[in-house]
């Protein structure tokens, strides 16, 4: 399941719902991304007041659904979930949550990493960090491209 929302989410409730009624599940792995209070901007560590996430409604949901379907084709998952927030967030706030349930832990761990790595390079979200000297758009990172590339090329990436 995928959800793109402005509202916060409750990790405990999400994890309980994910596996409810399915006793074949032996492993649940999850990742939560949070807003940091500091970020390197122009080589200097700067304090972040808020972070605003913009996205492309329609394409975002489409890409997340494709990424989730790809994970389910690669690993034997009993259930999976991607939640990504948009709007203005503060340091400490939850941004993103992915969770995968499977019979055994390796599939759950690997699928979670895959979901995050592909989400980072494929899902149309952009982060604007508000600092005491104004708003700064976050740059994409080569390390994220490399992390995504280790799973093989995305079918629709333009490189």
């Amino acid at each position, binding site marked *: 399941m995928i959800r793109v929302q402005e509202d916060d989410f409750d990790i405990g409730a999400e994890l309980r719902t994910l596996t409810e009624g399915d006793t074949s599940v032996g492993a649940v792995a999850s990742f939560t*991304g949070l807003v940091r209070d500091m970020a390197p901007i122009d080589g200097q560590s700067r304090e972040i007041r808020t972070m605003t*996430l*913009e*996205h*492309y409604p*329609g*394409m975002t949901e*489409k890409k997340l659904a494709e990424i989730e379907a790809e994970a389910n084709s690669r690993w034997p998952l009993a259930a999976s979930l991607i939640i*990504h927030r948009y709007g203005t967030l503060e340091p400490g706030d939850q*941004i*993103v949550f992915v969770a995968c349930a499977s019979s055994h832990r390796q599939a759950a761990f690997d699928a979670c990493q895959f979901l*995050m790595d592909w*989400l*980072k*390079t*494929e*899902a*149309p*979200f*952009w*982060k*604007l960090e508000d600092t005491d000297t104004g708003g700064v*758009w*976050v*740059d*994409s990172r080569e390390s*994220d491209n490399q992390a995504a590339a280790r799973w093989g090329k995305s079918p*629709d*990436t*333009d490189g």
Partner: protein
Amino acid sequence: MKILYFAWMRQRIGASKEDIDLPGDVTTVDALVDWLVARGENYSEAFVKREVIRAAVNQEYVQFDHPIKNSDEIAFFPPVTGG
């Protein structure tokens, strides 16, 4: 044709979306960018590093040699930074 801009592309151009009548001789994403850039400084500044901009036609990533038509929805945006 519906054109969407996101993040700093949106800020530099000064609009999040616009509807245009696609000229008949503009048949690829690249040709559309050339056409937009000729419209004003805000466009030429937004597209100054064309190689870093990503394009999506009907919500699918495409290369800049991808063909386009007037009924398409096209979006231009910087590399994505979610997660």
